[in-house]
């Protein structure tokens, strides 16, 4: 019963964390693109196009997929603790 509680609450908390990190990461990426545009605008491209293209690249990139680690690392840590304590 305790185990079920841990899984349910853990899942809820990790989901909140996952959503927050997703938004944070996206926001940081957009800011970076904006700054890069301010520094050196690309010829023949509007600012919005440049940012949209960069964001599309981010959405399909590896960095975004790495956020799934939020769900993977805690169970690994818990498993390690269980192994070493018992």
């Amino acid at each position, binding site marked *: 019963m*305790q185990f079920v509680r841990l899984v349910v609450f853990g899942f809820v908390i990790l989901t909140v964390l996952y959503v927050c990190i997703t938004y944070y990461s996206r*926001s940081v990426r957009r800011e970076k693109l904006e700054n890069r545009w301010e520094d050196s605008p690309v010829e023949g491209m509007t600012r919005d196009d440049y940012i949209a293209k960069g964001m599309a690249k981010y959405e399909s990139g590896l960095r975004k997929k790495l956020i799934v680690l939020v769900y993977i690392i805690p169970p690994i840590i*818990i498993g390690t603790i269980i192994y070493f*304590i*018992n």
Partner: protein
Amino acid sequence: MRNIRRFLRIALFLIVGLFLHYVMPQQDIARVTSTEIIRTDFSTFNRMFYAQADAGAAENPTRDLRLINTERKATYFFGLIRGGNETMVFRNEDTGWIYPPYFKFDSSDLQAEAAASISTAQPYEWVIVRHYGWRIRFLSIYPNAVSVRPAPSEDYRPFPWINLVIFAVLIGGLLFLRAMWAQFRERTVDPLADRVGDQYDHVSADISERKGRVSRWLGTWRKKK
């Protein structure tokens, strides 16, 4: 207002500090003198300091409690200063799946290990008892032993590597949360506040100039005078 804020900050710091001191692992050099089991009825005051029944067992209002009686080296100031010997009684309970997150299920095995290292005759056999919690006599609570392993010598001082790692992770997590909050404020709250604030600003431009960003945002919710 500033005093209230200062008070709240100190109170929060104290609560978090005490909580961490209670929950973090500590290592004592001790000599097991005996192990025993006592029946325990918990009161409303000390119930929160005990874990629950063994992981596979049912919870009842009263149950047996495993104790490990030891003589340990007294330590002060986070173990930096060593004192003489003192008695210390550890309880030995499963922490189970929830709190604190030690995931300890092997209380019976630990009790057997502790019993195996009972040392009452010279030369003494010293062990390192890893534990968390406090011994408060007037509440009848004991620190919970997590593991027992042989100590190289009586004067051995174990280094708290695990605490170091936990603190590093906690501080890193805190900084990350702060960065997240700053980003959220800068990119989401402030533009919104600026839009709303524009109407308000020309009424009291010089006042809002001196206010911080958050208080300016808070100001937009107040009634206009």
